[in-house]
């Protein structure tokens, strides 16, 4: 360390904690505790020649933060990664958000999983408020998305912010890209049903990145009539008609998504998506497969004691032939996967069983 500590040099010490918020006074205490090190230079907070970093690791469980760090690291700063993006693109400061907007950190991780790079064309079939597109545009990709919800795509309706009732005029996906200076990467968003794709048969997208609905905080929908609705009344075909939607079973969502990706990804292109899972019954064999897509990774994020979601990454390795879209039906994993349809019921059944003081309400048709 001595070359960086001699008496004519300037330095500062920075403290970083992971999984714990530290008060300013505590930070100072920790810096002072390093007095025993042979610093000979002078402290310069604004423009030091050398920056030393004290890193404290308090584990990964935000519900169980230890008093003392599990690990401590100390070293001299050489360069930053891109962690700053998590703060600079925080959803807290984003113009347009929804109940299910993906947080910045995970959005960028998903973009990395999909190997999104400059001049790619990226598509999100469940685009919502466009959080994933924001992250992809940051890496230079041109972005487009669809969603079945007219209001979300148009930036209308109730705000997801605590003190705000309705969405303002500058709240939409395009405005989000504009906020971060990537409006030029905006191609289009459309109101569309992901189960009925509107794209011509060609390998169009370099990556498909998405967070499909789990049926908990937003409903899973597709266009189509329920069996008990016969013919629509004559007055129904007005300009703003929003088609009747029926339940889009979770297992269908993922089968459709994999088939869609096999057909519309370029060779080597990646599909990255979240798969909701009921933990007590989960096994790796439940992750849907497709003959044209190779499973690259499957990473769990715990949501609660009985639920989690898995970030699944797949890469296109083969062009589809007609029979491939039906291949899954004969695959034994298909029957295992049907269990996902019960995800919503299992999620709520556990919540009801617990005598919960929690007053959180989930709307069945919530946005």
């Amino acid at each position, binding site marked *: 360390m001595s070359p960086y500590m001699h008496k004519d040099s300037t330095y500062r010490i920075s403290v970083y904690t992971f999984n714990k918020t530290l008060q300013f006074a505590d930070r100072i205490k920790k810096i002072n505790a390093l007095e025993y090190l042979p610093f000979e230079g002078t402290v310069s907070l604004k423009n030091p020649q050398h920056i030393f970093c004290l890193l404290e690791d308090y584990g990964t469980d935000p519900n169980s933060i230890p008093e003392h760090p599990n690990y401590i690291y100390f070293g001299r700063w050489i360069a930053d990664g891109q962690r700053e993006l998590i703060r600079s693109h925080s959803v807290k400061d984003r113009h347009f958000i929804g109940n299910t907007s993906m947080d910045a950190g995970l959005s960028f991780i998903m973009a990395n999983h999909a190997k999104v790079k400059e*001049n790619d064309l990226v598509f999100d079939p469940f685009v919502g408020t466009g959080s994933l597109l924001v992250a992809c545009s940051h890496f230079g990709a041109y972005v487009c998305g669809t969603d079945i919800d007219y209001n979300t795509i148009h930036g209308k309706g109730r705000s997801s912010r605590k003190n705000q009732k309705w969405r303002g005029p500058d709240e939409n996906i395009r405005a989000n890209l504009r906020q971060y200076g990537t409006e030029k990467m905006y191609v289009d*968003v*459309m109101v569309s049903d992901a189960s009925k794709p509107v794209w011509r048969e060609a390998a169009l997208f370099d990556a498909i990145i998405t967070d499909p609905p789990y049926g908990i905080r937003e409903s899973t929908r597709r266009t189509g009539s329920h069996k008990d609705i016969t013919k629509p009344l004559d007055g129904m075909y007005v300009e703003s008609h929003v088609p009747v939607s029926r339940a889009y079973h979770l297992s269908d969502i993922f089968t459709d998504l994999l088939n869609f990706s096999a057909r519309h990804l370029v060779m080597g292109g990646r599909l990255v998506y979240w798969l909701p899972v009921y933990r007590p019954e989960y096994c790796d064999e439940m992750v849907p497969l497709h003959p044209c897509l190779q499973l690259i990774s499957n990473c769990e994020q715990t949501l609660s004691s009985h639920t989690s979601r898995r970030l699944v990454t797949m890469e296109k390795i083969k062009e589809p032939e007609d029979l491939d879209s039906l291949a899954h039906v004969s695959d034994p994993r298909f029957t295992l996967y049907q269990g996902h349809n019960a995800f919503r019921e299992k999620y709520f059944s556990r919540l009801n069983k617990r005598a919960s003081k929690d007053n959180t309400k989930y709307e069945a048709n919530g946005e």
Partner: protein
Amino acid sequence: MKLLTHNMLTSHVKGVIKGFPLIIKATEVKVNEVEFNPEFVSRMIPKLEWNALVQAAEELGQRQDLPGELVPDFEKNEEFLKKVHRVLLEVEVIEGCLKCPESGREFPICKGIPNMLLNEDEV
């Protein structure tokens, strides 16, 4: 809606065999300035249905001197790439509709956003 998107969209009305390309009927069109990126344009050109792009530009009265055939060696032809860039990314249909060439069904475009949802009985 940009013409890059239009070039990839097809009608999915039940029973329609050839739903591409959708006919554009525009009542409001805007031309914005978008930063020119020759690499992106070069990458997109092989994915495009060229005739459909020219036809769409014509329908909007925005074709200008876009050639009817793809120019060979376009990657290095900056002048050509700029023309393609303009038509793909700068021309936007704000209000209007997309019409299925076979069934005649119209998908409205409102505030630049197409609504491709079919009604219950079309599904």
